[in-house]
């Protein structure tokens, strides 16, 4: 049983009304949000709020992810942690600081990431082009992962795989959508804009999942902690991007749920319009709630839970030495 994310697009004010959240939009509308039923709150508009509202969110452990102008991710307000464990953080940092242990975890993350990229190509091979040779190359690169002895070497293998993977996008995507080259900051075309937006959603989903453990989100294993972001979230997001973001990009474009009308190109690059973001988010939330039968848990779990159990598995690995099972698409 997972709770839903809640997205607020309106501009307005967020306040606390007794035990519940109240939103007054600039258009004069008032809405109440039962705080117990939200997993995470996403603010896409201009919202002002006070500490009483934060206090309520805090009490219910609801993180708030804030998106600024044109929905660029601005940051997160993470409630005081319900999970505090010095042990966990100590073990996490120890593993990071131990070349062997760090590499082993990095290997699992990148293997899963390449595996999931390959699964996408395998699905589209024959449908949208012939990707058999790239699928084969990704298989080899996945095998090569465990031979890498240094993190930069590992990242080079990952970069190589990702480049070959992105090279197939233009065959999969229906015209006029083209990726050409992966460019963000700012995204240079519609496809890049779509990928960036969805990658951001995957990233915040990972931030939420990590917050539910005592793990420190800033200490990642593949990404360097100096990157000024939650590098552990970036690591976990790499595993889930092909599953949750890329597959959705293909589907939205090829089913024409998203068209070029859903984008606007400005000096700052190409970005989704508000209507476009709404469509994408609705589909993204839907895919988070999709379920698959889990072979180890012997029950159906949602993709959102899958992120959570991936993080639990990492945590358990850090604390007990039992193997870390990074999520590799099996369904």
């Amino acid at each position: 049983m997972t709770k839903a994310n809640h997205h607020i697009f309106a501009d307005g004010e967020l306040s606390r009304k007794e035990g519940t959240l109240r939103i007054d939009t600039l258009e004069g509308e008032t809405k109440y949000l039962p705080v117990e039923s939200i997993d995470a709150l996403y603010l896409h508009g201009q919202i002002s709020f006070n500490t009483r509202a934060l206090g309520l969110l805090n009490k219910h452990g609801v993180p708030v992810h804030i998106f600024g102008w044109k929905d660029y991710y601005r940051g997160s307000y993470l409630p005081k942690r319900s999970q505090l464990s010095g042990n966990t953080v100590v073990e996490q940092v120890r593993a990071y600081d131990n070349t062997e242990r760090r590499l082993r975890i990095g290997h699992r993350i990148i293997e899963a990431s390449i595996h999931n990229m390959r699964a996408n190509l395998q699905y589209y091979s024959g449908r949208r082009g012939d990707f058999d040779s790239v699928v084969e190359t990704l298989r080899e690169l996945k095998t090569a992962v465990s031979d890498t002895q240094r993190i930069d070497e590992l990242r080079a293998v990952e970069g190589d795989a990702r480049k070959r993977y992105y090279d197939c996008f233009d065959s999969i995507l229906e015209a006029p959508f083209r990726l050409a080259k992966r460019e963000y900051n700012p995204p240079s075309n519609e496809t890049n804009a779509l990928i960036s937006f969805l990658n951001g959603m995957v990233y915040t989903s990972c931030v939420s999942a990590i917050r539910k453990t005592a793990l420190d989100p800033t200490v990642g294993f593949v990404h360097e902690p100096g990157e000024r972001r939650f590098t552990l979230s970036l690591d976990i997001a790499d595993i889930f991007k092909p599953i949750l973001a890329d597959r959705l990009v293909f589907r939205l474009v090829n089913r024409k749920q998203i068209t070029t009308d859903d984008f606007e190109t400005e000096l700052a690059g190409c970005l989704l319009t508000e209507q476009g973001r709404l469509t994408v988010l609705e589909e993204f939330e839907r895919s988070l709630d999709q379920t698959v039968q889990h072979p180890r848990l012997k029950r159906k779990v949602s993709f959102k839970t899958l992120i959570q159990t991936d993080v639990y598995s990492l945590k358990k690995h850090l604390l007990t030495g039992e193997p870390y099972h990074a999520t590799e698409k099996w369904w």
Partner: protein
Amino acid sequence: MSSTDVVEEYVQDERDPSRSPNVPITGLMVQYYHVCKRELWFMANGIDIDRETTNIQRGTHVDETSYGTSRRSFMIDNRIQLDILDSGDVMEVKVSSALEKPARMQLLFYLWYLREIHDIDKDGVLAYPTERKRESVVLDETTTAEVESTVRGVLDVVGRDSPPQLEKKPYCGTCLYQDLCWM
């Protein structure tokens, strides 16, 4: 080489105000020991998962709303939460009798703890308000031996470097730790 029994040692550590045991045992630990040793290891080693599950809320609700007037709650040594009935018996309230042994052992541990550490002799009542069922629990030679072997077992499991092996149990599906344990 001292051949002091771990249980004796534990009791000494508990009774001596200047010392405390390395692993202070709680009622929950005793319960987990009889439910699943792996769960005990996770819990005692501070490996926790998000506790939002409804089963816990249900348990808390049943406990808080049952037999309101005829019992008083005490917290002993900051660790042992006891409910004493007007009759003087120690009561433990459970939602269901499905896991009878763990609940009984938890209550027996409380009785043993009161006797060994605080020199207080009490009998116990195990209550299942939703099933309108009660069961009396007393410390005799057999049950004392059961408690002491549990204490030994708990200390052994908790002190291990790694968790006990994964084992499929009929109630894994309702366990809080399943998403961590099986992953």
